[in-house]
C-alpha cells in the first residue's frame, strides 16, 4: 500500500510539474516571442536549409537589435526553436507536431522546399497555427483553402511566364514555338503549368513537352529533338541537377536556341560551375540584390547583400532573402494585431500590405503573395567571369536582354 501511495504521489507530482512547466515553453516567455521552424540541416536539402536558417537568424538579430516587436506597449524579442527535418517530409510533419504540442509554439516559420511545406501545412492548419513560409512555391499549397498559411514568395507557376512574354515581345508580338523539359516533381510541374498558361495566352505552340524522370541525368534525346525542331524558346526546369545537366549538354551538343529559360541557376551555382558555357541563359529568381525595394531593417537589396556576406561569408541566394523577409512580415503583423492571440495575428497577416527589401508583400485569400513579380536575369560573362544581370521586369533591368543567343559557332 505504502509503495502504491508513494507511486501515486510521484505520478501526481509529475503531472502537476509538467502542467506547470508546459506553458513555460509556450509562444511568449517573458519578453520573448518564440517561433518554431523545422529546417533541413542534413539530407539532400541541407545547403538550402542552411540558407533558410541563416536568413531567419539574420532577421531575428536585426529586428531584436532595432527594438524588437512592440505589442501592448511592451517590447518583445524574437527567438526561434529549430529542429532538423533531415529533408524528409514525414519527419517534418512530426516535428511540426512536436513544436506545437510539446514546445507549445503558436507561430511557425516555413521549412525549405515545396514538398516539406506541403507536409507541414496540414499540421499547422489543423492546430490553427499561423505559418509564414518563404520557401514553398508549389501552386498546390494555395489551392487547398489553407487559412493559416502565408507565403512571401511568388508561386511556382509564375517563375517563367515572363520569359514567354519576353520571347513573344522579341518576336514582334507574334506567337512563338516553345520546347520544354521539366522534371516530374511538384515544383517543376507547376512551372510547366505556368508555361502552358502563357502559351495559351499568347497563342504560342508547344513543340516539345518532355517530362524528365527524377533519376535521369541525361537530356541528350530532348536536346537532339530541340536541334531537329528549332523552337524559339527552350524552357528547362529540374532543380540544380536539371540546370547543370542542361547547360553541360547544350554546350557539348552545340544546341542553338534563340532563348534558353531556366530555374535554379543560382542554387546550382551555374555560372561558377560552368563558366562561360552558361552565358546567355535566362534564369528566374524570386529576388535579386539590384532590386530597389526598401525597408527600415535591411535598407535595400545591396545593403542586405553586403551585410549577409559579412555575417556568413557568402553572398545571399534568394532563399536567404525571402526567409529574412518572413520575419519582417511577422513583426509587422504582431504589431498591427497588437496581441498574441493566434486568430488576431492570423487576421493581421491576411491584411498585410507592405514593402520589404525583398519586395512588396500582400497576401491573396489563398495565402500567396501577389504583390511581387518574379525577376529574370541573364548570365553575362566576361571570359569565365560571369555575372547575373537583371533583364526583366524592365523597371529593374540593368542590361539589355541579349536576344537571340549567338550561335555556338560564333562564340
Amino acid at each position: 500500500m505504502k509503495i502504491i501511495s508513494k507511486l501515486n504521489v510521484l505520478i501526481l507530482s509529475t503531472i502537476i510539474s509538467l502542467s506547470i512547466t508546459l506553458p513555460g515553453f509556450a509562444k511568449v516567455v517573458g519578453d520573448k516571442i518564440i517561433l518554431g521552424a523545422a529546417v533541413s540541416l542534413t539530407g539532400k536539402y541541407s545547403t538550402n536549409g542552411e540558407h533558410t536558417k541563416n536568413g531567419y537568424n539574420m532577421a531575428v538579430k536585426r529586428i531584436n537589435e532595432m527594438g524588437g516587436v512592440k505589442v501592448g506597449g511592451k517590447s518583445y524579442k524574437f527567438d526561434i526553436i529549430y529542429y532538423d527535418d533531415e529533408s524528409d517530409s514525414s519527419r517534418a510533419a512530426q516535428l511540426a507536431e512536436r513544436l506545437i504540442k510539446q514546445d507549445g509554439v503558436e507561430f511557425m516559420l516555413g521549412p525549405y522546399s515545396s514538398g516539406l511545406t506541403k507536409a507541414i501545412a496540414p499540421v499547422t492548419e489543423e492546430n490553427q497555427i499561423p505559418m509564414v513560409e518563404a520557401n514553398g512555391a508549389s501552386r498546390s499549397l494555395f489551392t487547398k483553402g489553407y487559412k493559416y498559411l502565408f507565403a512571401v514568395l511568388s508561386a511556382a507557376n509564375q517563375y517563367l511566364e515572363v520569359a514567354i512574354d519576353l520571347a513573344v515581345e522579341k518576336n514582334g508580338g507574334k506567337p512563338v514555338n516553345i520546347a520544354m523539359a521539366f522534371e516530374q516533381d511538384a515544383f517543376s510541374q507547376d512551372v510547366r503549368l505556368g508555361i502552358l498558361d502563357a502559351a495559351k495566352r499568347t497563342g504560342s505552340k508547344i513543340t516539345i513537352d518532355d517530362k524528365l524522370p527524377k533519376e535521369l541525368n541525361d537530356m541528350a534525346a530532348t536536346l537532339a529533338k530541340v536541334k531537329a525542331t528549332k523552337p524559339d524558346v527552350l524552357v528547362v526546369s529540374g532543380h540544380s541537377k536539371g540546370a547543370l545537366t542542361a547547360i553541360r549538354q547544350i554546350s557539348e551538343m552545340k544546341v542553338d536556341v534563340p532563348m534558353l529559360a531556366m530555374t535554379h541557376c543560382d542554387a546550382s551555382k551555374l555560372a561558377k560551375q560552368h563558366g562561360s558555357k552558361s552565358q546567355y541563359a535566362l534564369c528566374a529568381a524570386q529576388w535579386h540584390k539590384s532590386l530597389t525595394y526598401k525597408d527600415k531593417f535591411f535598407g535595400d537589396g545591396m545593403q542586405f547583400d553586403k551585410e549577409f556576406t559579412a555575417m556568413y561569408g557568402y553572398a545571399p541566394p534568394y532563399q536567404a532573402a525571402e526567409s529574412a523577409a518572413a520575419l519582417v512580415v511577422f513583426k509587422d503583423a504582431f504589431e498591427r494585431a497588437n496581441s498574441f492571440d493566434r486568430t488576431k495575428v492570423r487576421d493581421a497577416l491576411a491584411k498585410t500590405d507592405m514593402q520589404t527589401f525583398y519586395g512588396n508583400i500582400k497576401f491573396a485569400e489563398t495565402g500567396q503573395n501577389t504583390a511581387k513579380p518574379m525577376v529574370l536575369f541573364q548570365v553575362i560573362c566576361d571570359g569565365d567571369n560571369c555575372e547575373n544581370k537583371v533583364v526583366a521586369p524592365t523597371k529593374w533591368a540593368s542590361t539589355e536582354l541579349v536576344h537571340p543567343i549567338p550561335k555556338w559557332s560564333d562564340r
Partner: protein
Amino acid sequence: MDLLIFQNPILIVQASLDGILLGILFALIAYGMALQWGVMNIINIAQGELVILGGYIAYFLYISGVHPAFGIIVSPVIMYFLGVGMYKAVIYRVVDRDMFISILATFGISILAQQLMNSVFGSDVVVAQSNFGTTFLFNYMVTLPNAKIFSACISLIFAVILVGYMRYSKLGRAIRATAQNARAAKILGVDTDKVYAATFGINAAICGVAGALIAITFTLHPYVGLPYTVRSFMIVIVAGLGNLPGVALSGMGLGVFEEFSDYLFGTEFRIASVFLLLVLILVFRRFKLSRKREYLK
C-alpha cells in the same frame, strides 16, 4: 506516339550512338556487379554509391587544379583499398549467409555512404569540366560530346584489361575457381577469403573508374547513386552472370532501347519502358527455362 525520329532519319543515328556510348559506360558498372554476384553471391546495393564516391574523387582532383580525367587512374586505386576495407569491416561477415542478409548489409552501407558523402561533400550538385569539346558527324547533323566518347573508350579499355586479368593472372584464376566452387577451391589451397577481398576491391575500383567518367559526363550528387545500382542490376539480369560479352551487349542494347523509347513514347516513359522490357525478358526466360526442365525430365 511521336514519329519525329522517322521524319528526321539523322535522329536515328544520333539516338543509336548516344545509346551505345551510354550503354558501354553502364556495362562497365554492371560488369563489376556481375563479378561480385558471381563470385561472392552478393548483390551490392551500394554499387551506385561506390560509383558516386569515385566520381567525387575525380571532382576533388578537378577542384585542386588537376584535370578530372586523371581520376580514372587515381580513383580506382583509392577505391580498391576502400573496397577491401569495406570487405574486412562488413562483407566478410555476410558472405556465406543467404542473399537476403547481404542485400540488407549492402543496403545499410549505401545509406551510410549517402549520408557520409552528404555531410563531407555537401548536398550541392557538382560537375567537373573536361573541356574535351565535341565531335561532329554528317555535316554537323550529329553531335557527340567527346567526353562521352572518352568514357566509352576508357570503359572498353578497362573491360579488356579485366578480362585479360581474369583469364591469365594467378588471382584471376583463383577468382574464377572460387566462383565455380568455393569449397573445392578452398580444398585445393585457394585462400578464398583473400579472393573475396580482392573481388570486392576490384569491383570498387571499377566503380571508381566509372565514377570518374560520370563526373565529366554527367552530374554528381550524394543521393544520385541508386539509378546506377538499378541500371547495372538490370543489365546483369538481362545478360546473366559470368558472361562479359553479354553484359556489354545488354548494356548497349538497353541504352539504345532507352533512347528510342524516349523519342517514340516521350521522356516520361523512358525508364518505364526499360522496366517493361525487363519484365518481358524475365517472363520469356522463365518460359524458356520451364520448357528446358521438361525436356530434361
